[in-house]
């Protein structure tokens, strides 16, 4: 017989609008993952970006309601959606913002540190490898 206490995320205080946003965000991520698997990258990133904006808005509302566990879930999801959308700058900024919070649980802090470090590494690779073609400039005398 199990006698340990339950470890779960509380949904107390979730209203109809928040639940609808959650469902819409999930639809976008499902579609984005499917489009990505089909090689339709532009459409996939469009959906990840829209999901990221919803997750940001959701997390801000959850913070106002002081639903801190749910806030962390959706904030980390927003970060991850921005990364999937290709906006690594925004993703890293959100990660740093979360890491600055003193109330961030240790195990989530460690996961976000790892994730942000991965993004920083990818950003360096992008900066080094991305070299736009030289542009000829006509100089008038």
């Amino acid at each position, binding site marked *: 017989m*199990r006698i340990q206490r*339950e*470890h779960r995320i509380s949904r107390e205080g979730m209203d109809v609008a928040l639940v609808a946003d*959650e469902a819409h965000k*999930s*639809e976008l991520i499902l579609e984005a993952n499917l489009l990505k698997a089909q090689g339709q990258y532009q459409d996939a990133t469009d959906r990840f970006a829209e999901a990221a904006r919803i997750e940001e808005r959701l997390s801000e509302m959850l913070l106002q309601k002081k639903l801190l566990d749910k806030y962390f*879930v959706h904030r980390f*999801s927003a*970060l991850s959606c921005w990364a999937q959308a290709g906006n690594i700058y925004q993703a890293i900024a959100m990660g740093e913002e979360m890491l600055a919070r003193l109330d961030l649980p240790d195990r989530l802090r460690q996961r976000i540190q790892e994730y942000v470090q991965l993004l920083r590494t990818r950003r360096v690779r992008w900066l080094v490898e991305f070299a736009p073609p030289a542009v000829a400039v006509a100089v008038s005398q």
Partner: protein
Amino acid sequence: MADTMDEYVLERIAADNAIRADLLLPFAITRLRQAAAPSRQAILSVQLRDVPEAGESHRKLLLSWSAGDVAEDMIPLQERVITEWAAAGIACVLVPLYTSLRVLQVTQAGDTFDYWVGDNSREYALEVSGTIEGNLAGRHAAKVRQLQRNPYGVDGYVAVTRFASLEAIFSFSQYGERVE
């Protein structure tokens, strides 16, 4: 314990979950048809571990669907992707059928699990995996270990399906539980 036969119409996953589970339907039907063709139904052997209560039980689950040859309408995808999405479709059956919960949300990269399940008051993690012919017990154990590393420290469910033999394991594990 004697097997008990349950029944479920696959198309119900859209109504029984909060996510757009209908997107997963063609994948689930494609994989089930390969084992059950030409009929539009398949019997899945389900091993329940600590679902809905402590202990292990076995069920026979008759899955039926009305859709025709969905594979013809699908854009070509890797076999592995089809199998994983098919397993997600099966998880969307198992969660509402064997718990009082529904699939609430899709997670994003970094969470170490795939979905959030719950009701109006609580949420748990759900990790899903599928294989055609692989080792089901081994895959289940690996997924439980993965779930135990979740960064939120929540309890959760694991649903794994092997399509060639039409078998599934659906389990619940508490965070911090010793994993074999």
